């Protein structure tokens, strides 16, 4: 109700600003929980209260009685409700924040200022029945139905200027878009520009061949060099076709850029809160690609989905399930086995200098009271056994089990024995 009568309109983030939502809104039709919220900075009630102290609008709550429009029938609008932050004590955390699609503005060679040059995510919304056009295929510029569409792969992926990695899912979703379009509009002309087509795995190559059968044209070896807006409003696409062995060009009505999958904003800060680290490409890093694929170097912190790297839905689900099992294995027994090779403070020797505390990469060291004094304490469940603290302690109060001074000296002696 409120989502239809609220008079304040703002660009709809879920549809990448291709249409508008109200200030009282439900994020998207499949949102969980599917509840309306009020977007405070854009709500006229809050704006006017801030300015004049008086509410200028309470339409969602009270409706517009003279027009016979009813307000929230459940009386659920609470203007005095506040955002709340909750502290929850947990035994483990799974980070699954997903990814961010690269925006088009980076790619000046593809005329990003043109409304008819869109990203695949935007195109996905245009194709969706619940999207900005209600599922109707329309050019954003003039609302006409495009007759020729060019799709460009690897935009920002496999590109040393942006991301050296392959985003992995673009080839397949481009083919998916092509298939949806060809099945719905058989006469549409589709040109898919690929460097090469990556359709690894079960059923994917078959999908590719089927899409070709439907009449989608595949241009390989052809990362497009430029998209220009022509005076007639059409887009000129220039590429290279390795199979024709010739430069090619095309006049398109709509250009769809398969932009790279990027790590989500703030993932580095988030990771460091948990002492989980990011790899070179900015995704959170697993401990071992094969043996510990969902574990981070912080104990009890797991990762799943695209926060760890580009992947498709089946892979994300498999990884999420693996992370859930790893979490359950850690938490459900109610007790934790400590590693044997960890460090321990002899608190009677500790001089309370605190040097070790900021050095520990796993935030395992705290200062706690011991015999009436502040002393360092290493949480054995968090210690990863790196030994940094033991080597730094000026009072030699920290024992690194398995690598005590005596043990190391004995090793040296054995190695240097004539």
């Amino acid at each position: 109700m409120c989502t239809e009568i609220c008079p304040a309109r703002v660009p709809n983030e879920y549809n990448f600003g291709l249409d508008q939502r109200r200030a009282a809104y439900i994020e998207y039709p499949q949102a969980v929980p599917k509840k309306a919220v009020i977007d405070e900075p854009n709500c006229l009630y809050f704006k006017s209260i801030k300015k004049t102290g008086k509410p200028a609008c309470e339409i969602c709550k009270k409706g517009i009685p003279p027009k016979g429009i009813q307000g929230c029938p459940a009386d659920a609008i609470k203007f005095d409700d506040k955002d709340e932050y909750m502290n929850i004590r947990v035994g483990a955390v799974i980070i699954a924040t997903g990814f961010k699609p690269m925006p088009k503005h980076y790619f000046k060679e593809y005329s990003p200022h043109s409304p008819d040059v869109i990203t695949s995510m935007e195109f996905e919304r245009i194709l969706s029945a619940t999207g900005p056009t209600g599922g109707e295929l329309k050019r954003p510029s003039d609302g006409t139905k495009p007759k020729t569409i060019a799709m460009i792969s690897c935009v920002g992926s496999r590109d040393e200027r942006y991301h050296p990695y392959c985003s992995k899912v673009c080839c397949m979703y481009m083919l998916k878009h092509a298939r949806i379009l060809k099945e719905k509009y058989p006469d549409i002309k589709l040109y898919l520009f690929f460097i090469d087509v990556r359709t690894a795995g079960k059923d994917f190559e078959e999908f590719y061949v089927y899409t070709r059968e439907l009449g989608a044209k595949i241009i390989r070896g052809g990362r497009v060099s430029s998209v220009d807006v022509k005076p007639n409003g059409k887009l000129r696409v220039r590429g290279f076709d390795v199979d024709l062995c010739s430069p090619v060009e095309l006049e398109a009505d709509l250009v769809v850029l398969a932009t790279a999958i990027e790590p989500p904003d703030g993932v580095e800060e988030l990771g460091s809160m948990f002492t989980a680290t990011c790899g070179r490409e900015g995704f959170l890093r697993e401990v071992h690609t094969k043996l510990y694929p969902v574990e981070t170097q912080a104990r009890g912190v797991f990762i799943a989905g695209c926060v760890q790297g580009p992947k498709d839905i089946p892979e994300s689900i498999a990884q999420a399930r693996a992370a859930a099992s790893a979490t359950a294995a850690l938490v459900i027994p109610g007790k934790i086995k400590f590693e044997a090779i960890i460090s321990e403070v002899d608190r009677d020797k500790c001089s309370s200098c605190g040097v070790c505390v900021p050095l520990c990469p796993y935030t395992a060291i705290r200062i706690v009271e011991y015999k009436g004094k502040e002393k360092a304490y290493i949480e054995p469940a968090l210690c990863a056994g790196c030994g940094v603290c033991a080597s730094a302690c000026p009072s030699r109060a920290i024992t690194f089990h398995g690598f005590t001074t005596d043990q190391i000296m004995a090793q040296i002696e054995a190695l240097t024995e004539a």
Partner: protein
Amino acid sequence: MEEGGVNVIDLTQGDESFVKELIALGADELRECIQCGKCGATCPMALAGLEFFIKRIVHAANLGLRDILLEDSSVWGCQSCNRCVEICPMDIKPYEVIQAVRRAAVKVEACPANTYEGLRNLYRFGHAVFPKGFEERRKKVGLPEKPPTALSFDEFRKKYQELLRQTILEEIAPFPLD
């Protein structure tokens, strides 16, 4: 091709109705070609250095590039060896693509002149290859002037011409069928 453009192929001229025409003319698996290049690695056209060889022909056909295919004489260079058909992993039958392009070309009289000469000879004499002055050469080596084919049997030739007149040749022959 854009004005001033050098060697740029304009995909916009791609015509899907041409693709459909080729499919109807026998290239029925055309669209499934994944451009793996295996045919190009065995085709004598490619081995002989022809630039527009089978793999590129299949791709151009799939893109509906009618003018390029009909203006180029490459399809007429095919040796009908059928190596491509045997080797193609997608069962495209690339030779059938060549044949379909040839059929399409014949319909719009876009064949090289020598193909018409062969066609005319075939109709007139029952032989596509009909080198001038063969009678003397045969005589020299002691053979009858005419070989014992349609050339020697007017009656059969007439019958055979009658049959040919009932084919598509009747519509497309750029010479009188008399």
